[in-house]
């Protein structure tokens, strides 16, 4: 018993750390979200999400991140399937190549697209060389979606790929053996068995896309405001922290929903990306 206690002491620094820098900070957001500048209780910070401009920025963020998530899923699933069916092991270099951008500084990645899309950027330069009229590519919703898909695609590929790798070849063979054609096998076996990975991937794309302010700032210009931009401005431009915290709490509802989804569909952490 004594020995066990001594061993548990090793967790002390970590527990202390997570109390001080994970739990208390989160409670502080809650505190700020429910108080005004004088420190008295209020719901107005939360309810300000109902004002037209905030509602619009939340709705736009939901819309763009939803579209990006769907595109990521549609692109990533076949990719993960091809990688799995080629029998490439998890340590294989090819798989590594597809996952690699996940670890690249995403400011750099976004900056790269800015370079390509800008008014006098690479794509318009190429168009000019072909004597085609320049296009207004940057500062559009499309540019933001592109940036989101580009930045978060590997986060969709990896968990799906990990789950697909755990499906036994013979399970697929069994479905074929019982008469299922490719589409039937896909919808009756592949997809249901990969739900943990799909859910995990959706969360890993949807949450950062929904809350981003960088991509919208760099690719969307100053006119397109997502909820992330609103919150960021409240905190960094001398705005109202209480309001920012309140809006963050609204965002946290969506994050909690995704955590709950993961907990429900990915009990054993099969779909985890790491």
């Amino acid at each position: 018993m004594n020995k066990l206690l001594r061993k548990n002491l090793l967790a002390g620094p970590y527990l202390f750390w997570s109390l001080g820098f994970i739990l208390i900070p989160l409670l502080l957001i809650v505190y700020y979200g429910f108080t005004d500048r004088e420190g008295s209780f209020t719901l107005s910070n939360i309810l300000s999400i109902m004002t037209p401009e905030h509602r619009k920025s939340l709705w736009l963020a939901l819309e763009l991140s939803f579209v990006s998530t769907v595109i990521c899923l549609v692109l990533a699933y076949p990719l993960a399937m091809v990688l799995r069916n080629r029998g490439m092991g998890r340590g294989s270099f090819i798989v590594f190549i597809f996952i690699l951008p996940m670890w690249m500084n995403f400011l750099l990645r976004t900056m790269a697209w800015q370079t390509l899309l800008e008014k006098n950027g690479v794509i318009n330069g190429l168009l000019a060389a072909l004597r085609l009229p320049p296009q207004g590519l940057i500062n559009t919703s499309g540019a933001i979606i592109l940036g989101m898909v580009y930045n978060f695609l590997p986060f969709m590929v990896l968990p799906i790929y990990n789950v697909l790798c755990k499906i036994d070849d013979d399970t697929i063979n069994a479905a074929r053996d019982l008469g299922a054609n490719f589409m039937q096998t896909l919808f009756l076996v592949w997809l249901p068995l990969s739900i943990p990975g799909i859910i995990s991937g959706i969360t890993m794309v949807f949450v950062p896309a929904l809350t981003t302010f960088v991509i919208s700032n760099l690719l969307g210009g100053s006119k397109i405001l997502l909820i992330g931009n609103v919150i960021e401005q409240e905190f960094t431009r001398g705005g109202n922290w209480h309001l920012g915290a309140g809006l963050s709490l609204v965002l946290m509802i969506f994050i909690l929903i995704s955590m709950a989804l993961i907990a429900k569909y990915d009990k054993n952490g099969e779909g985890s990306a790491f």
Partner: protein
Amino acid sequence: MNQPLINLKNITKSFDGAVVLDDLNLSVAENTFVTLLGPSGCGKTTTLRIIGGFETADQGQVIFDGEDISKLPPNKRQLNTVFQKYALFTHMNIAENIAFGLKIKGKSKTYIQDKIKYALKLVNLDGFENRSVSSLSGGQQQRIAIARAIVNEPRVLLLDEPLGALDLKLRQDMQYELIRLKNELGITFIYVTHDQEEALTMSDTIVVMNQGYIQQTGTPEQIYNEPENAFVADFIGESNIIHGTMIRDELVEILGARFACVDKGFGTNKPVDVVIRPEDIDLVEPSRGTLTGICTHLIFKGVHYEMEVTTPDGFEWLVHSTDMCPVGKQVGIHVDPFDIQIMNKPASEDEEAVGVNE
């Protein structure tokens, strides 16, 4: 034999340049229990997967009921497979697993319900409809895998080492169940195993394979009692394989002693391999034995004693007997003529395989 249901013609298959099957020919009669038996890597599973459609042969044809199905994908073949590790769909319950093939074929709800009931009864798991796959034991999962296959009324059931993951007692029970199932259903079973006892117990026909070649095809009795070469003799049961010389028809010389036998047609003074099963050796008084030796090893095995008798030339005879002979005692070795099996010597390692592939 009646018209074969499945005919493999000149099947050749290699993986990454390594030849797994080389010009293999095999025919399977309708309503028989055929076992492909051999050590791992002998090509038996590949053969099964080619029949099932999960691998395509590099060359050769798969003829099913007179039709060439070599190019058909698995979902269009009239046969079903029971996989080694069951391969049940873990996201479905038992009833959904069994119904899978029937739903694909668009059978009616009532038909499917009846079939599920019937199949579960057949494998002695009535009432398991709503259980989850993970709540079943290995043996139960295997029965469900069988039920899932047979509800589709395949003409052939392919079984890939289906009992390999079960423990001994369960394996023996399942062997009897499989025989019962085969008799009740009246369909053809093609069974892959490396377990010779399983093969001997269940099969109508055993196909012994090694290194991509068929070594011998025959009934369990033929395979056990009249192995065609040293590989078969060694792989099926235990045996004493001894270098000998065929003096003339019905007389063979082993280790300097002459034994009467029943084999003919090997010529005179020809070197041969002689197979004698350990249980066919009678230990007698030294004076009555064809050879004499000293018992050098004794182990009690339950049903019988396992002994080693060393003859003066140093050969160690493996003997199984219910009579015990103490270590150090001198004994005579006697073998009845019909218990001696004579085989041609292979000219080389390669021919050992090729020579019997007829």
